């Protein structure tokens, strides 16, 4: 059926779409969006074929590789541009191209009135291509190319409406913060090359035993920094909220379903490193746990629907990172949560876009309310995503989040109890803030501005939402049916250590459901059964104010990094002006000055020249006389 030699077309189709649409220009305005959607869909169909082909093969020959060309060859160091499709990357390929295609379809309608729709679709295709390269690369260096590519696409798409300076700034912020993480990845690659002499996943895996734990810890920490940048994890999380400046389909695709989960992919892909470096692994868990609470707290206070969802994304990725940091027991669950999250969060973002579409691009949830009746399809699809994210059985999030909570509890000792409690607390808060979003938007009394006439979105918009909603309902069940996903991914990871179940699974399920009930009830009490102000109340507690300001993340970054950085650059400007320019100008004016002085000897009188020649000749004679004497 399909062979390894067709792997390149997975990336090639959308890449061609992006290049073609950008080069051909305005001529393609009429049909560019359909072309781009077809490219993305082609990639998805090819991915599906590969998936069926792969599942028909025996477990040990499921991974296939296609070498495209020799990329770098210096001495003993050789890197091929090669693609690797294995059980892990196929999950991502299907998620990226599948959700990507749905979002392409959605955007056809959502961006219908934008004059730059063709450019938008070109960027979307570029993103799909880069993201596929990220997950298909067979070495850290190939992954790095895709990693930078998605960063670029993210930058272009966040700033797509860069006529507004704030949006342009948001895209710059995302780009700059991502650079910090990218630096971590490049350092990790450099350390791996210096100590192991290879950057292939396979080669690094084999070399793990050869190098010491400190090296592995260093690589692990660098990879973690990379993951925090791309996945908006603490301490590089501040860009995600502002990234919501981009068009909503972008938020759904890049900043919810796919790109921001690249960090999780990186950690899971590097499982052999983290398994051998417990310190780095512990740091991964800590980062995940902090972000999971951090994001959830911010989510509780945001009135902007997209920012609330962004905070929720941050928090859910925190769950995945925690899962990925729990070692062989957690990798598969991290991926499972990633996939289910891809469904329900993308669906909810599209729902938010649909709501904004009907409400004249209003994002403030306090101006919503009562949309259940006027936007029934959006309500139902969003609602299914909502049930999935808070973890109501039998929706997708219930399965994946439960597994992570259970694994966290069972990771042993005090760490297990702390982690379990944190993830459980996260579940309470998730239920609270998602219910808040749901109530404020759909079920509370209408608080619309005058002149707003909400209406249901066209079919091209609600169809992708409906498909994603079906995914949010069924994915969890499908993945856990007979441990399907876990056993599918198992060959990639080290064997799970047998451990005593400190906390039986059924107890965790009960706890998790209790957590959901607590969260939902609290939110209902506060928002459903009380009237909500259309203007955010200002006499609120310090904690709320802090959460509204993203827990001071921007203040912190400004105080610790931005202002000292500005002071440094200003200092450097002064050094440049005074010292370096001073030296250059000094040499110049010295030459001018000495010239002016010497010029006085050039009187123009022949007699004085003659006298000088005479004096010179006499001096010369005197010198010769002295020397020969």
């Amino acid at each position, binding site marked *: 059926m399909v062979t390894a030699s067709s792997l390149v077309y997975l990336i090639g189709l959308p890449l061609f779409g992006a290049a073609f649409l950008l080069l051909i220009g305005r001529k393609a305005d009429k049909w560019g969006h359909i072309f781009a959607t077809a490219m993305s869909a082609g990639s998805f169909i090819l991915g599906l074929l590969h998936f069926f082909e792969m599942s028909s093969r025996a477990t040990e020959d499921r991974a296939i590789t296609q070498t495209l060309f020799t990329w770098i060859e210096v001495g003993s160091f050789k890197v091929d541009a090669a693609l690797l499709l294995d059980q892990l990357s196929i999950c991502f390929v299907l998620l990226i191209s599948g959700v990507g295609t749905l979002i392409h379809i959605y955007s056809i309608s959502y961006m219908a009135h934008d004059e730059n729709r063709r450019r938008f679709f070109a960027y979307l295709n570029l993103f799909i291509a880069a993201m596929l390269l990220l997950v298909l690369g067979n070495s850290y260096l190939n992954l790095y190319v895709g990693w930078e590519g998605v960063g670029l696409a993210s930058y272009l798409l966040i700033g797509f409406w860069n006529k507004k300076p704030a949006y342009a700034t948001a895209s710059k912020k995302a780009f700059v913060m991502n650079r910090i993480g990218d630096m971590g990845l490049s350092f990790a690659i450099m350390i791996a090359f210096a100590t192991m002499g290879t950057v292939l996943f396979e080669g690094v895996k084999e070399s793990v035993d050869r190098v010491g734990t400190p090296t592995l810890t260093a690589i692990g920490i660098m990879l973690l920094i990379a993951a925090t940048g791309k996945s908006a994890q603490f301490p590089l999380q501040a860009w995600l909220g502002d990234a919501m400046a981009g068009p909503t389909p972008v938020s759904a695709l890049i900043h919810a379903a796919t790109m921001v989960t690249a960090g999780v992919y990186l950690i899971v892909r590097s499982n052999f490193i983290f398994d051998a470096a417990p310190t780095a692994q512990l740091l991964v868990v800590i980062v995940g746990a902090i972000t999971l609470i951090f994001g959830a707290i911010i989510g509780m206070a945001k009135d902007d629907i997209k920012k609330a969802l962004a905070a929720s994304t941050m928090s859910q990725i925190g769950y995945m990172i925690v899962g990925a940091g729990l070692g062989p027991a957690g990798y598969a669950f991290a991926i499972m949560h990633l996939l289910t999250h891809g469904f329900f969060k993308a669906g909810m973002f599209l729902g938010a876009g649909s709501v904004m579409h009907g409400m004249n691009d209003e994002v403030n949830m306090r101006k919503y309310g009562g949309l259940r009746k006027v936007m029934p399809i959006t309500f139902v699809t969003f609602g299914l995503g909502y049930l999935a994210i808070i973890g109501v059985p039998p929706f997708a999030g219930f399965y994946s989040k439960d597994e992570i909570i259970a694994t966290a509890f069972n990771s042993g000792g005090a760490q297990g109890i702390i982690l379990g409690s944190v993830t459980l607390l996260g579940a309470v808060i998730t239920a609270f803030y998602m219910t808040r979003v749901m109530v404020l938007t759909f079920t509370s009394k209408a608080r619309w501005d005058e002149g707003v006439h909400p209406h249901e979105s066209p079919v091209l918009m609600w169809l992708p939402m409906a498909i994603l909603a079906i995914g949010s309902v069924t994915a969890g069940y499908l993945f856990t049916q007979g441990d399907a996903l876990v056993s599918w991914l198992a060959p990639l990871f080290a064997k799970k250590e047998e451990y005593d179940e400190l906390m039986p699974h059924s107890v965790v399920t009960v706890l998790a459901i209790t957590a959901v009930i607590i969260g939902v009830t609290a939110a209902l009490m506060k928002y459903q059964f009380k009237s909500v102000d259309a203007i955010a109340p200002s006499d609120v507690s310090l904690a709320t104010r802090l959460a509204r300001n993203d827990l001071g993340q921007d203040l912190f970054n400004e105080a610790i990094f931005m202002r000292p950085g500005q002071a440094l650059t200003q200092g450097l400007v002064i050094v440049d002006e005074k010292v370096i320019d001073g030296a250059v100008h000094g040499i110049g004016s010295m030459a001018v000055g000495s010239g002016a002085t010497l010029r006085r000897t*050039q*009187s*123009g*009188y*022949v*007699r004085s020249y*003659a*006298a000088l020649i*005479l004096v010179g000749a006499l001096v010369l004679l005197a010198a010769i006389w002295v020397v020969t004497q």
Partner: protein
Amino acid sequence: MDPYNYLYLAALLFTIGAVGVVVRRNAIVVFMCIELMLNAGNLTLVTFSRINGDLNGQVVAFFTMVVAACEVVVGLAIIVAIYRSRRSASIDDASLLKR
């Protein structure tokens, strides 16, 4: 007669020429002083040639004379040209090179 006396004479002539070049303003006089120095040099060459008993110095003296003759031709032509345009043979007036 002691040939070294010619050297003293040459030194004297050269000094007179050099001082003349430096102190006199009239271009013709300066020119004559230059000739004086050249010929002082010639005298020295011839004298050494005599002292050392070979002809090299005399040969060089001939060259110097040829060069001096050429120089006189060119130099006088320049002086005449300047005199025609400015009605002055003072070399201090021709100080335009300053700017």
